């Protein structure tokens, strides 16, 4: 029983680790999409910033500098997305797609040019990464049943960026629903004419929104390569940006429900990893591929309105044209 409990606790712990980049990207998506800008480039920005973080950390040895540069690069690509979609009224899906494809190409091309390791970055030493933070008394608490194991395994031992991700949810919820900036942001995504009439620049609001999205994607990317992992590998985001997008939709473009969706998707991932190779009676090996596909299937079912209804912001995807 104690063994089973430990397994469960460890799965929850893994869930949190897997969900961290999803949470950050989902919050990024919420900011962007709430302002009316579709952002399928979460994936690409995360990939670019993962690469940047690992590269800078490998070259200069500082994870903080890596994080900083990752955020800057991600925000630059947010600006490109904004320049295309807000300034030039380009198609938001096409722009996002372009960034994703560009990211796949750029990271490998530049990676080979710098490190000549087939697109990977060198393995990072512990000083070049964000390491796990052990909370006080975690070792001692291990022996206390239930509460102690939860404290030692689930709460303690995460790196800083996990906490940043959780904090980002609280901040997103606060900014979006309890500040005038948030009110304007949401209004820009629902009825930009109204915001314009009130004398607020729709363009400026949307640029701010995509920049915040860039910031959060940058942290997510840095988490992957210099906190959770120890270096960058080709295509290391592996569709996480799209899962985050799915989680955001699943959470109806709201921070707390989106967090729950990220945790659920993370849990599926963690479970699939644990069940890899486990034989089921009558069934043969565990179909872990089918567990991993559940987030996508569930999102399709949700979008189809079979379980609740996901209603996106009204003005999403439409460039705003100011009347003259």
């Amino acid at each position, binding site marked *: 029983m104690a063994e089973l409990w430990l397994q469960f606790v460890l799965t929850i712990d893994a869930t949190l680790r897997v969900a961290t980049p999803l949470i950050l990207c989902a919050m990024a998506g919420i900011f962007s999409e709430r302002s009316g800008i579709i952002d399928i480039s979460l994936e690409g920005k995360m990939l670019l910033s993962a690469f940047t973080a690992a590269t800078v950390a490998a070259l200069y040895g500082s994870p903080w500098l890596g994080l900083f540069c990752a955020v800057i690069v991600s925000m630059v690509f947010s600006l490109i997305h904004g320049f*295309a979609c807000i300034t030039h009224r380009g198609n938001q*899906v*096409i722009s996002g797609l372009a960034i994703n494809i*560009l990211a796949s190409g750029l990271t490998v091309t530049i990676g080979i040019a710098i490190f000549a390791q087939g697109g990977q970055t060198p393995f990072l030493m512990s000083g070049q990464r964000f390491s796990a933070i052990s909370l006080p008394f975690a070792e001692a608490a291990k022996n206390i049943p239930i509460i102690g194991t939860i404290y030692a395994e689930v709460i303690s031992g995460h790196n800083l960026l996990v906490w940043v991700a959780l904090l980002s949810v609280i901040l997103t919820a606060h900014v979006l629903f309890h500040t005038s900036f948030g009110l304007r942001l949401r209004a820009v995504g629902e009825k930009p004419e109204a915001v314009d009439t009130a004398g607020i620049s729709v363009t400026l609001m949307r640029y701010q929104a995509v920049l915040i999205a860039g910031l959060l994607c940058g942290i997510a990317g840095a988490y992957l390569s210099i906190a959770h992992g120890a270096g960058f590998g080709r295509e290391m985001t592996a569709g996480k940006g*799209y899962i985050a997008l799915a989680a955001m939709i699943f959470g109806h473009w709201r921070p707390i429900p989106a967090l729950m969706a990220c945790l659920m998707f993370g849990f599926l991932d963690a479970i699939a990893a644990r069940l890899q190779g486990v034989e089921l009676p009558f069934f043969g090996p565990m179909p872990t591929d089918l567990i991993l*596909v559940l987030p996508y299937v569930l999102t399709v079912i949700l979008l189809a309105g079979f379980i609740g209804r996901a209603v996106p912001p009204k003005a999403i995807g439409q460039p705003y044209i100011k009347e003259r």
Partner: protein
Amino acid sequence: MRRPLPAWVDISIMPLINIAAAFVVAGIIIALIGENPLTALSIMVKGAFVYKGALGYTLYYTTNFIFTGLAVAVAFHAMLFNIGGEGQAMIGGLGIGFVVLSLDPILPPLLVVLLAIPVAAIFGALWGIIPGWLQARRGSHIVITTIMFNFIASSIMVWLLAGMLMAPGQMSPETRHFAEGVNLAQIHHIANALGWPMARSPLNLSFGIAIIALVAVWVLIWRTRLGYIIRATGHSEKAVIYAGHDPARIIIITMAISGGLAGLMALNEILGVQERVILNFTSGYGFTGIAVALMGRNHPFGILLASLLFGALYQGGAELDFEFQTITREMVLMIQGLIILFSGALALMFVPTAERIYGLFSAHETSASDPSKLGKDRQDG
């Protein structure tokens, strides 16, 4: 003074400017990583057209892009953004696999191939119909659903190829080889048999099917009732309802055609080259189809040209891989991303400037006598 661009400038000069911009940025990046962009370009051109067998390889890639480009374009005409070409092609390949693996022990090869071709289209169409139906009847956004369907298709492929369909005694996730003769003949085999010496390349008969598809899509979109209604659906659903049609039905039909075209891409890879079903044979060609359709302005002739360009890019990119230590095929991915950015998302960026330049050159033609044109002057800045 700014003037609206005449149609010929809009369809010929503007796309060239956008591609040029993409290549300039790519050139800057190549220079930044310490290589000479002009050398790279000349190697790409030689690699795509000049070397022995190069043209065959270029046309082989072109085949993929014609199918996926047409798939995106047909959907675009109904204002549907199908980014699920990748998944639809995978499922098309799966369809070929089902037909061939179950029938090749009992039926003659030619008959198996003739059965497999429509099945590829049907399977691809089914994978397009579901998102189409979800969009039309349940209101879910087609972009998101097709993204999800790409992942679902990919998981199904992994699950089947590493399970049920995996060849016995095989470690990699792929099916057994198809029986002897169950393929679309490669052109160099045919040419050599006819007495024309021709270098080896994977170019095969599916190129011919791609050309037929180009013509068929042109006829469908511009010469049939259905094509007219598809375009009308893209412009105004209300008008379509008023004309007595059900837009939801049109959306589903359009997605079926679109998915079917993407499914046909599997012919080139599975029946033309691999002769077995492997994992990830689509290698992003479905996404490239979006770039192809954008550049080709959703017109079959434009798609043919854009497919040739991308075919040359892919083949030339493979050549870069050999010649340079620092440049790999991912360079092509980068250029592709830039092309989508400039000719898709930033398509309108150069228009105001072009209009000003055009205005300078045609200023002496008085516009006051043509009030209809004045009214059309763009109001944006």
